Every structure is written in structure tokens, then in C-alpha cells.
């Protein structure tokens, strides 16, 4: 019982970096031209492994998809998304898993990957970065226009369509940008910058939502 009580207490205590923006996001989304919202508490794991190693293969099996090796590509497998961040680095996104004990074993995604990685060969790191960044969804016919105000990448659908991701700058913050659907993007930003990025997006969207 005590355990259960603690778990309830914990989820009540959890506060996402953009919890305070919910109402403003809703207002900005009301007109239909744009949808802006935070997707809080996604499980996020930073994975470092040699893509050619047996460990990478085992991890791929655990994820249900081979790790994408083409720079800037993102693959989805069920409710998981794997983003290419670097030649030996990926960000694995999954649904909110509530809260596991720090450092404890369990059935969570991180533990599954650590187990898959094994310790026999090579070296693999799986670091929980779920609270390091938060996720914003920006969707709608003008989503690309909003991003183009602060992102120097070519976001043309032929260049940055669904299945593409990039680490880049949005305004003056580093972000991971993911094209989910033709007109739907995820913007992953560091928690400390989240307020800045949210304020910036709301300001950049003003022209399209009023």
C-alpha cells in the first residue's frame, strides 16, 4: 500500500517544463491553422553504440527496428521512435512510463535496452534523458512557416518530410526537430530552454493564428 501511495504521490508531484503554457497553447491552436501543444514526460533515452556491432543488432531487435544509419533519419516502431543524432548516437522516444527507481532494474525501456546491449562485446551507453528535454508538437498548414522564422534548415516537404529529423537551432536554442507527418513536427528542446522556445513559437505563430 505504501508503495502505491508513493507512486500516486509522485505522479501528482510531476510537473512538465511547459505546464504553465497549456492555456496559451490552446488559444493559439483554437483557429485551426496551427496546433501547438506540449507532449510531456515522453521516455527519452540517449543511446550510444557502434551501429555495426552485434549489440546494435540486439538493441534493434528489442526496439523492433534496426537503428537508422542514414544521417537525419527517424524510424518508428509501434509507439517508439528512433532518431539519428550522430554516427553512433540515437535518441529513442517512447511513451511516458511513469517513474522507475533511479538505477533500479525493471521492465522499463531503458532496462530492456541495457539488457539487449549486454556486456559481452563493445561498449554501449543507454542514458535516461527523459527529463532533459520536453517535446512540443507543432502541426497544421502553417507549421512550416512558423518554424522557418527561426530555423535555417530547408523545411520543404521534399527535403524535410516525414521520417526526417535534425539537431539544429530554432531561434537561438538548440533543438531536435522531427518531421512526424507532412504538416506535423515535434520540437524537442532542453527543459531549461523550453519556456524561451515556447514564448518564441507563440510569438512567431501570432501572425497565423489571429
Amino acid at each position, binding site marked *: 500500500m505504501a508503495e502505491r501511495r508513493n507512486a500516486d504521490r509522485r505522479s501528482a508531484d510531476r510537473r512538465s517544463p511547459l505546464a504553465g503554457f497549456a492555456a496559451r497553447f490552446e488559444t493559439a491552436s483554437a483557429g485551426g491553422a496551427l496546433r501547438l501543444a506540449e507532449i510531456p514526460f515522453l521516455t527519452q533515452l540517449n543511446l550510444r553504440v557502434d551501429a555495426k556491432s552485434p549489440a546494435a543488432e540486439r538493441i534493434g531487435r528489442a526496439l523492433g527496428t534496426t537503428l537508422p544509419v542514414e*544521417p*537525419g533519419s527517424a524510424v518508428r516502431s509501434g509507439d517508439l521512435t528512433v532518431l539519428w*543524432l*550522430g*554516427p553512433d*548516437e540515437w535518441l529513442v522516444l517512447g511513451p511516458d512510463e511513469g517513474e522507475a527507481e533511479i538505477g533500479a532494474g525493471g521492465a522499463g525501456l531503458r532496462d530492456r535496452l541495457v539488457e539487449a546491449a549486454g556486456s559481452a562485446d563493445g561498449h554501449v551507453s543507454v542514458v535516461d534523458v527523459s527529463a532533459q528535454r520536453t517535446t512540443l508538437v507543432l502541426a497544421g498548414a502553417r507549421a512550416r512557416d512558423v518554424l522557418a522564422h527561426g530555423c*535555417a*534548415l530547408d523545411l520543404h516537404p521534399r527535403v524535410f518530410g516525414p521520417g526526417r529529423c*535534425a*539537431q*539544429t*537551432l530554432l531561434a537561438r536554442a*538548440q533543438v531536435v526537430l522531427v518531421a512526424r507527418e507532412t504538416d506535423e513536427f515535434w520540437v524537442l528542446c532542453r527543459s531549461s530552454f523550453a519556456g524561451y522556445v515556447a514564448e518564441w513559437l507563440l510569438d512567431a505563430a501570432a501572425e497565423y493564428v489571429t
Partner: protein
Amino acid sequence: MLLIPCPWCGPRDEIEFHYGGQAHVAYPEDPAALSDEEWARYLFFRDNPKGRFAERWSHSAGCRRWFNVVRDTATNEIHAVYRIGEPRPVIA
């Protein structure tokens, strides 16, 4: 705003990169064996040519990889981009 071709991510704006100075300046094998002058040469002396220059860049706002670039310091034209550990390419 240079357009620097990251060997991994492709061309990105210069603002996403950090400059790392002259390439192929290796950390000495055994610093203790060097004279003060030799050590000072490693620490403080770099080439500064007008023309082609092999230099290091890091895609710091992207994939965070270091790589080498041969850039013409007078025209900013980038003649070659190659990964760390690869030899400086011969450019005609």
C-alpha cells in the same frame, strides 16, 4: 554565413559549428620529453596562411562530430571536408 558541409549531416549554416583551429596538430606523444621551447611551439604556434588551410570544425549544434576542412582563407571556398583520422586530401 558560410555553408559548411558536415560529413554527416550535410551542408549547414556556419552558426551551427565551432571552429577548432589548425588541423593535424597532434598532442605530443610524450610531453615530458619536450623542451620548453618545443612544448611552447605546440601550445602557441599555428600557421596562418593566405590560401588553403586545413582546419578543424565541430558541428556543435548538430551531430557534435569533429571533422577537418580545407578552406581557402582568402575566398572562403571549401575545397575538401574529411573525417578526423583521415589524411589531408590532395587537391589539384
